[in-house]
């Protein structure tokens, strides 16, 4: 919904939220999610507006809201209601109004250190209690700066100052977050500064309604925390697709020539585009794929990126669609080439007409209103939170590399007439075994990101993955694939649970970047091996259709399963009888298990 995309009109959201909600609830295929909001102030509208942003991300939240300022009691003491609710996420929504004891001017440094420790420990105890009891993701607000400074500027440098105290407390929160999985800081310190602390902290709303922030600031707050949630849920965008003329540089390269476009350090406009190019390059380092979509002659356009002073180089893009096709078609083709869905794209173009064509023809793709001022491009893309990072794995940082390597594989395929010979030439090696601690985060990430090669679309948080790995009545297998071109990392996961002498497959997923490499057969072989070692007689597979997973509709038939059930919605159940003479299906991948 355009009204909920950054930059949004907060006033309009507050005024029309009922209407928006009604409209958003009509969207099909929403993912349910249980969120407990434990607040240190009134949270009513925070929750209502979070609901809008989450619905807009395809998530249908169910909320538990603590009574006013009962966050600590709710977390620390037996709480049957919250236990029964079984939250997927607990959001501790506290503010600097919840700090119990600030330094006084007469305090010694020991007293101040003690106050800091007390304040911090109260929170840390709460996080640890929640982690052990609810085993769910935790999101914690850090603290916004105070709305007054007793000592003026010295408040920041003097340990007696509140600004100083809050800064230290926030640093302690950061250290915990940096060393703890499934724990995320909601940075209200930044977002309140960006909004303007004076307006954000208007005490009117505290004294009138016990809101610790002004009501008009709530959409900014709720949007910011919703971005963390959708990122945890694997709903980040994956590709940044860029136009070239007047998006990456000033001017039209076909008319002006590579020497005359504006980029580099010579002019203010050139500097602006250079700064934007640097920002785009950094986004690529996060693991977001960079692609081009431009109406130009390809060779002419690439000259712009080959200039010495161009920050972005042709090699930074995994895919280039530089032609005279409609941009919406280029986007859809790019999605096919990368084995991704069109809705994982963010399309950036300075031309409103091109934006409209893509918006109209590619539902789900993000097309930010970046306006016509290049100096604002960064702000709009950045604050939109398309690529909100919650976990930064080594895989993420290497992703652009991996896709470039994939392009090389495709190139080498052309030299073969026999596909089997091609697979043999890749010299593939796989590690396929029980989940190990090093990969828990990647495995959980994969369960949340895989949409196409996903039989049941069951999502797991990292704690849930750890729990099934630890449970003897589950079979858990991950597969990691490498070949002579490079390492693809963990690309496939199977989770099955054992009932008597049957194994039921709860989850079977694979990353689309290793399609048609026989990896699914290698996974099947190991699954069978594990089942046989546990004296299991049959394997039951399930397929639940979604808008995105049609490619695996007949997956179990391919693996030799027999269809035993089908309902009107197309849900199917498949059975595979095990026997000792199972013939291995994988012919091309060498299995090398390192052990734990």
């Amino acid at each position: 919904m355009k009204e909920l995309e950054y930059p949004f009109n907060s006033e309009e959201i507050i005024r029309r939220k009922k209407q928006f909600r009604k409209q958003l609830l009509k969207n099909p295929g929403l993912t349910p999610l249980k969120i407990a909001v434990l607040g240190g102030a009134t949270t009513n509208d925070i929750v209502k507006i979070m609901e809008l942003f989450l619905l807009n991300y395809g998530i249908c939240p169910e909320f538990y809201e603590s009574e006013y300022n009962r966050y600590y009691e709710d977390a620390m003491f037996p709480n049957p209601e919250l236990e029964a609710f079984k939250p997927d996420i607990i959001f501790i929504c506290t503010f600097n109004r919840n700090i119990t004891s600030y330094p006084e001017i007469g305090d010694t440094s020991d007293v101040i250190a003690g106050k800091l420790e007390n304040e911090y420990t109260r929170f840390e105890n709460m996080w640890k209690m929640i982690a052990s009891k609810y085993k769910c993701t935790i999101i914690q607000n850090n603290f916004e700066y105070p709305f007054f400074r007793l000592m003026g500027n010295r408040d920041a440098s003097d340990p007696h100052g509140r600004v100083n105290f809050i800064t230290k407390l926030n640093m302690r929160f950061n250290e915990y977050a940096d060393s703890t999985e499934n724990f995320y800081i909601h940075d209200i310190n930044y977002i309140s500064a960006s909004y303007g602390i004076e307006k954000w902290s208007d005490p009117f709303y505290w004294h009138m309604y016990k809101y610790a922030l002004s009501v008009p600031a709530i959409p900014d707050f709720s949007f910011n925390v919703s971005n963390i949630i959708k990122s945890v849920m694997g709903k980040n965008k994956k590709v940044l697709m860029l136009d070239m003329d007047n998006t990456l540089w000033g001017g039209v390269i076909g008319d002006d020539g590579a020497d005359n476009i504006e980029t580099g350090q010579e002019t203010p406009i050139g500097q602006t585009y250079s700064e934007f190019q640097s920002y785009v390059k950094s986004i690529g380092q996060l693991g977001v794929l960079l692609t081009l979509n431009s109406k130009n002659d390809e060779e002419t356009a690439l000259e712009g990126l080959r200039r010495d002073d161009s920050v972005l180089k042709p090699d930074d893009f995994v895919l280039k669609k530089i032609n005279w096709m409609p941009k919406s078609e280029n986007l859809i083709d790019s999605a096919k080439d990368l084995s991704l869905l069109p809705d994982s794209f963010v399309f950036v173009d300075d031309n409103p007409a091109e934006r409209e064509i893509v918006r109209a023809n590619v539902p789900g793709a993000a097309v930010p209103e970046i306006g016509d001022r290049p100096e604002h491009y960064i702000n709009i893309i950045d604050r939109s939170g398309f690529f909100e990072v919650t976990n930064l794995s080594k895989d993420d940082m290497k992703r652009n590399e991996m896709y470039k390597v994939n392009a090389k594989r495709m190139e080498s395929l052309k030299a073969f007439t026999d596909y089997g010979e091609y697979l043999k030439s890749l010299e593939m090696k796989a590690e396929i075994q029980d989940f190990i601690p090093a990969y828990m985060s990647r495995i959980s990430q994969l369960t949340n990101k895989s949409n196409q090669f996903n039989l049941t679309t069951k999502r797991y948080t990292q704690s849930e993955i750890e729990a099934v790995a630890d449970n003897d009545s589950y079979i858990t297998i991950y597969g990691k694939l490498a070949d002579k071109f490079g390492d693809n990392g963990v690309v496939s996961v199977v989770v099955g649970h054992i009932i008597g002498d049957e194994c039921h497959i709860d989850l079977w997923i694979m990353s689309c970047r290793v399609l048609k490499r026989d990896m699914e057969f290698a996974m099947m072989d190991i699954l069978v091996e594990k089942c046989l070692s546990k004296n299991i007689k049959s394997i039951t597979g399930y397929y639940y259709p979604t808008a995105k997973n049609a490619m695996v509709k007949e997956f179990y038939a391919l693996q030799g399963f027999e269809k035993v059930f089908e309902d009107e919605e197309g849900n199917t159940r498949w059975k595979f009888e095990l026997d000792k003479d199972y013939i291995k299906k994988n012919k091309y991948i060498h299995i090398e298990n390192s052990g734990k």
Partner: protein
Amino acid sequence: MTREEVFERLTDVFRTVFDDETIELSDSTTSEDIDDWDSFEHINLIVAVEEEFSINIPMGEVTTMKNVGEMADIILAESSK
């Protein structure tokens, strides 16, 4: 701005906030008359009214306002400042 104009714009604000096109306002309309008008929605309503008329209603007035008639009086007084 006349009192009639205030009522016209107020009606529009009420209809959007409560997502109910049938709402008709009079001087004596109170929260009793509108289903969803609870203390939380009251906050949103005040924010929307303040935005609509570009005013800031003081704390004392927000707490003592008894019906829509009084709200209109406050709006007239505040916007003439």
